[in-house]
């Protein structure tokens, strides 16, 4: 069902957790839908210095959260804003058709976190 890479990120998720006094926080989904993702950012000099996530959801939701954090850590805000849900799914070697909706969450949560950061810093 899932690719090896999905299973790897699911079983060993990178960057799980919260960041105290995060510079930006983004959340998407809700528990009623069976998926909720929250992303925490630490930004310094326009670079994503640290990123963490917490996710309630299926295997695909956890894996996409994990890989998203890995893909943008160390990148500039502009680069991170360019990350698409499609790119996340591709990075994982694809997701089952029934699970494509989950890959439509992680990048969105990231973008929300960046938005939050920009709002807070009036950028």
């Amino acid at each position, binding site marked *: 069902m899932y690719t090896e890479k999905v299973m790897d990120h699911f079983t060993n*998720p990178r960057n799980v957790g919260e960041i105290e006094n995060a510079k930006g926080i983004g959340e998407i989904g*809700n*528990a009623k839908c069976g998926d*909720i993702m*929250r992303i925490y950012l630490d930004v310094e000099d326009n670079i994503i210095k640290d990123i963490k996530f917490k996710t309630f959801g*299926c295997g695909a939701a956890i894996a996409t959260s994990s890989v998203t954090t890995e893909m943008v850590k160390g990148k500039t805000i502009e680069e991170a804003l360019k990350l698409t849900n499609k790119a996340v799914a591709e990075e994982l070697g694809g997701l089952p058709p029934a699970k494509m909706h989950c890959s439509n969450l992680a990048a969105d949560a990231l973008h929300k976190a960046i938005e939050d950061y920009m709002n807070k810093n009036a950028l």
Partner: protein
Amino acid sequence: MRKVYLDHSATTPVRSEVAQVVTEYYTNIFGNPSSVHSFGREARKGIENAREQVANLINGKPEEIIFTSGGTEADNMAIIGSALANKNKGKHIITTAIEHHAVLDSCKYLEKEGFKVTYLPVDSEGMIDLETLKANITEETILITIMHVNNEVGTILPIKEVGAIAKERGILFHVDAVQSYGKLPIDVNEMNIDMLSASGHKIYGVKGVGCLYLRRGVKLHPIMFGGAQERKRRPGTENVPGIVGFGLASELAGQEMEMENQRLTVLRDKLITGILENIPCTQLNGHRTQRLPGNVNISFEFIEGESLLLMLDLKGIAASSGSACTSGSLDPSHVLMAMGLCHEIAHGSLRLTLGRDNTEEDIDYVLEVLPEIVERLRAMSPLYNNRDKHRNHREECSICTLRK
């Protein structure tokens, strides 16, 4: 790795006695039962013997058993077939909100054909109320179709009482017994059952075979057309090996039922208690006592079912869940929702169904690995920290806003 299969309500392995006889019918007694020659006659004997074995288990007559391709086909035949054959008497059907889709979707089809269907509600334990049933019967009611055991939460419904009501009111009564056949005692006469569906692969028989019990005299419109097999009730070359295996599985299930149920009840209760006592924020779904011996269904707050299944799978434990991600639809299990569970609690449900091959060591193993897994997933969950805030939200249970 240790493998612990705890998904016996989804399907079961074929037991060795059955596998052996089925194989015999593959290569030696392989004839078409409609044939005149010895190959055909021997195959015919096998089918007729199986028909007796099945009839014996539910106290029916052999000629009242129609073999089908499975539980789904039996449900369709019974519901659509009897409704169409009796529509001149009325066009109202009563069922429950927690039926299997084979029943619900047959009813929905009939709604399109102009029938009215009442879906009886259930309480938080998945139980129907007999007074509500009675109150919903009208002059137009021609069929009551109610499952014996719910496949998700294991609640045992009061079939005998429903049968008495149906009989008194002269209404046909169909029972989807796919989850109880071979597991609980069934007597179609004592319970006043007119039609009953069963499936082979739930009782260590093979997949692709099941049966409909059809009381003598009950009229059915066919749902499939062709040859004159099964007394013209079900066309197509009979699945002889499957039928013979189903017969044997039925007989063996009947012999072992009492002992096996005692054993499973002990294991089940140990598992339920072990989970509820050792893992916080858990709840049992389904009825505490009116429950299939092998069924455990528990919700784990703050985590989602599919993740839980995957983690368990990595430990060799096979289970199932009512989460939307595994139900193949937008929403979590309609059964848990009908029982009034909050969406997110339903998403976090875990069903462990025990069977012949499970031992006490299996239960110990689950109780050993499950707490860690739950803890791990909760540590990842954004819902776990602000538990209290979250609890207040719970009552809303709004509709999912995501489009999957």
